[in-house]
């Protein structure tokens, strides 16, 4: 989570910080990045891909991360908090996630970059040959990588333990991803 987003998130974030329980129990909040008012997702190649907005979690927090629709999810904060992006497909440049090399994207907003923002990620994909997600430090799938198999998640990169295979700490560093055959 980057400082600027703490400012942007406003009162809700402030309340969480004051309560001393940042993000841990926070629902996915499609506010600053995702937006409930968005139109159907844009697919540059004109292919129709059925995707839906992950639904806002009920206030009781019972379904923290249960709003999945067959996507790879990336969240701004730990434990699925803050702004988010979801992709049924690939995105080779998170600086411009609506640009070329992006498919089946949802939640980021048309022009919102998600580069170097993700702090928690979850692969809630559909089962087939290509249900592993490989994330890269660099755009265009360059630099160190790490991989999540279907169903797997990393809930909090801010702890500093998770690293890419080139040793780069994972927090706020993912810049591209694609679906591939397997993580091994």
């Amino acid at each position, binding site marked *: 989570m980057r400082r600027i987003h703490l400012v942007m998130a406003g009162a809700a974030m402030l309340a969480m910080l004051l309560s001393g329980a940042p993000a841990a129990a926070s629902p996915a909040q499609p506010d600053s990045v995702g937006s409930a008012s968005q139109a159907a997702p844009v697919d540059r190649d004109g*292919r129709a*891909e*059925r*995707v*839906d907005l992950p*639904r806002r979690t009920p206030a009781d927090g019972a*379904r*923290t*991360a*249960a709003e*999945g*629709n*067959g996507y790879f999810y990336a969240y701004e904060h730990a434990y699925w908090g803050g702004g988010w992006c979801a992709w*049924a*497909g*690939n995105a*080779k440049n998170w600086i411009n996630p609506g640009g*070329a*090399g992006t*498919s*089946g994207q949802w939640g980021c907003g048309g022009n919102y970059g998600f580069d170097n923002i993700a702090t928690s990620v979850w692969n*809630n994909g*559909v*089962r*087939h*040959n*290509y249900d592993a997600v490989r994330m890269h430090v*660099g*755009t*265009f*799938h*360059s*630099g*160190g*990588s*790490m*991989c999540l198999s*279907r*169903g*797997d*998640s*990393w*809930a909090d*990169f801010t*702890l*500093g*333990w*998770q*690293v*890419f*295979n*080139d*040793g780069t700490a*994972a927090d706020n560093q993912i810049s591209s991803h*694609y*679906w*591939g*055959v397997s*993580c*091994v």
Partner: protein
Amino acid sequence: MTRAGFQMWLDASPPADELRSFPYIVDDLAWARRHGFGSDLVEAVDARRLADPNQRYVSGLSPERREALLAALNGPRPEGLEARLPSGGVMRRSAEGCTSEAQRQLYGDLAQWYRANKVVADLSYLRQRRVLADPAWTAALRPWARCLRQQGYAADSPQRLRESVGDRGREAEIAAAVAEARCAQDGLAATARELDARHGDELAAAHHQDVATRNRLEHGAIPRARAVVASEQE
């Protein structure tokens, strides 16, 4: 999944070229000529993913049904199973859903298998990290970069080379990947293989208990898997 009210299709194996991975450098000239750094495969996979009967089926469901399917498949939320990875980080997954149910039947102790399986898989990342941080790798990059310079590329690392190609198109990507593979034949490819094997052996020895646990549980699953396949064919 059928009991949960959903359909599922089994896939044929992906093409062999898609199963190749080059964690350090592309050192296969023929593969580089066909695929560059592999961006065409990423796109081909995306097309196949969209055409996959499972993906099409899920895309055709209502949001409520889709959510129900994914909860039945992957579990409702990514918590329940946990693996502390040797490379750092904690990976988690649901212990519920049909995937978990099937794996529990196969391996017996799901939590233990998940942990051992993820730890062993993580060793390959740790191995790659160690290779890339090894002084011998860094040293081998220098003559490789000199060779690249003679071919017109200023990059001093594989990452820089990929970044310099960026979105400049398929021909540029293939030319750069061919240069990478050609220059790697002078020592970098051999260094990568040596370091990969050495660090792999060291890590397997350091985590031999996890490797043994994973192997024991997976060997134990083979007769159960055979029995399942046999009963489906009756």
